[in-house]
């Protein structure tokens, strides 16, 4: 099996590495920020990040340097950086590891980003359930503050950069960047209508950048080793660097694996994650978190980069790869994800709020062998009327499990409906709006 040089997981792969400030510095930590602070202009730091090709690791894959470049150049008031540590896309568990095992790598990345965009204050919005992660970050920030790396006049310069931890409280939608900002302002986490974008009207209506944990953790390495080095890894020019892929489901060795983008799903699943957990064959996999449409064994040789997965009809998303073996009921699997989306719909847009309720009711009755053939048309019709008709991408996400399982495993839906018809079960009350 080929081995790859880990970048983000390099420190924590050393046995005994605790992620303390002293250990992080022993491995060359806080050298990148020293190299740039007051010595390289913020515009040049942004240019390096653009040149590296780094794209957001949270799900959307937007080029990081370009996002920074959208901030108004002549704006004199405060600007903010928010680190999105709300990790809540089902199938994804990488940010938790990056935070708990090497917190200073993230903090150094945040300092670099703050310097590049001119932010003196930044917040780490961490999902509320990560209590341990929040404690580890608080401790790391305190240690960095004591060392003069965070706060006023950091590293002996006249630059001020503060970092605060802000805990969420259990809402998937707060991973959406504008819902995150609403939540950080003490409100319900409802996504904002865009435009305006956070780059001009973000936190407290000020220019703001929201970047994912893994995105920020890459920055020290890019500044230390250069844009060319980073751009040579993975599948240049559009998918550069490594990704920490989270493999879950029916594999022998689930877990986080950092590999260059562009290896195949076959290699990730069968070599890194040890293949299937039993002698049952692979039936289906989700390539990039619950929002990404299901793929089939025919897609195992698709490359793990943004373009290839999109071309295969799905998305690389958050890097959460969930594997299902032969015997998994695909209608049940789609229902489980639909239950998730129904629970997490924030309620702002009616297509999503009402639609998720209808979808989950129809899916439940099909799985409970109470469905009828007309339900399949209703499902498809509903999905088409939800996707693209909501303020945020949640609407597109919630229909993907149903549409993709209908596409690849329609016969399983039909079999459940035939079973219902054979048993001559009376259809229960029609779908309504009740929750």
């Amino acid at each position, binding site marked *: 099996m080929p081995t790859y040089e880990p970048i983000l997981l390099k420190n924590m792969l050393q046995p005994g590495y605790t992620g303390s400030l002293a250990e992080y510095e022993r491995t060359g930590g806080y050298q990148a920020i020293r190299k740039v602070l007051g010595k390289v202009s913020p515009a040049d730091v942004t240019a390096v990040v653009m040149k590296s090709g780094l794209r957001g690791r949270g799900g959307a894959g937007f080029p990081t340097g370009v996002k920074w470049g959208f901030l108004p150049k002549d704006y004199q008031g405060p600007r903010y950086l928010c680190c999105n540590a709300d990790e809540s896309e089902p199938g*994804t568990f990488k940010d938790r590891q990056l935070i708990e*095992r090497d917190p200073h790598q993230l903090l150094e990345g945040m300092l670099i980003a703050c310097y590049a965009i001119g932010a003196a204050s930044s917040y780490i919005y961490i999902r509320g359930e990560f209590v341990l992660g929040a404690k580890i970050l608080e401790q790391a920030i305190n240690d960095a503050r004591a060392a003069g790396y965070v706060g006023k006049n950091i590293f002996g310069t006249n630059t001020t950069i503060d970092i*605060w931890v802000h805990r*969420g*409280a259990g809402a998937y939608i707060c991973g959406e960047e504008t819902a995150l900002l609403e*939540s950080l302002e003490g409100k319900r*986490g409802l996504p904002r209508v865009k435009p305006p974008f956070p780059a001009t009207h973000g936190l407290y209506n000020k220019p703001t950048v929201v970047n994912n944990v893994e995105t920020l953790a890459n920055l020290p390495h890019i500044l230390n080793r250069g844009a060319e080095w980073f751009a040579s890894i993975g599948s240049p020019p559009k998918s550069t660097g490594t990704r920490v892929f989270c493999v879950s489901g029916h594999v022998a060795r689930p877990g*986080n694996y950092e590999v260059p983008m562009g290896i195949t799903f076959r290699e990730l699943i069968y070599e890194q994650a040890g293949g299937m957990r039993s002698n049952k064959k692979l039936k289906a996999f989700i390539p990039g978190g619950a929002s990404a449409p299901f793929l089939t064994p025919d897609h195992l040789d698709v490359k793990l980069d943004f373009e290839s997965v999109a071309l295969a009809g799905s998305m690389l998303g958050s890097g959460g790869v969930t594997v299902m073996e032969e015997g998994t009921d695909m209608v049940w699997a789609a229902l*489980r994800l639909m239950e998730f989306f129904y629970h997490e719909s924030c309620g702002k847009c009616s297509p999503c709020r009402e639609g998720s309720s209808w979808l989950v009711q129809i899916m439940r009755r099909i799985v409970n062998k109470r469905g009828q053939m007309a339900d399949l048309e209703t499902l498809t019709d509903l999905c088409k009327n939800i996707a693209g008709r909501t303020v945020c991408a949640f609407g597109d996400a919630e229909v993907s499990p149903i549409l993709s399982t209908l596409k690849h495993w329609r016969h399983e839906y039909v079999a459940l409906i035939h079973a219902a018809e054979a048993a001559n079960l009376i259809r229960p009350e029609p779908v309504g709006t009740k929750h």
Partner: protein
Amino acid sequence: MLQETHKAEIDDILSRYPVKRSALLPLLYLAQREQGYVTEAAMQEIAGILMLTPPQVYETATFYTMLNLKPVGKFHLQVCKSLMCALVGSDTVIGWIGAKLGIKPGETTPDKLFTLSVVECLAACGTGPMMQVNDDYYERLTEEKLDRILAELRQTGSSSLKTGPFMWPEPAAAKAGA
């Protein structure tokens, strides 16, 4: 009153934000930590501290699943039931807990020790089935582990089986696999 008992902590929280309302979730957490859930009196007091109306506090508090608006048991068992955990047996775990404690999801044991909740994804998909008990994660659950966790919680108030700083696979295992 929180303002009398936790003045320094409240001041520290307020100092982090240029706009007071941002301190709302941290203050609701503080109230919950003190009383086990967020009481109406606490919400009114927090509204006063942040110069908000009580409905503004209430509308935020009701949006977030981690804020308990009614009392829960001393140990709040929250089992993930999302697809990734369901593929590796979360429904079985929910059944075990129900049988061992004699409660259904949403219920609390008569001695007020345990509340069972079934929740959506907690971002531990590679180490399922899993549950969160108060602040701690318990992963790769088996029936034997579950028995130990419940016994230790009853006896000492905490369990040694909780997950520390997370990494999976662990470094040694990652090496063996490489």
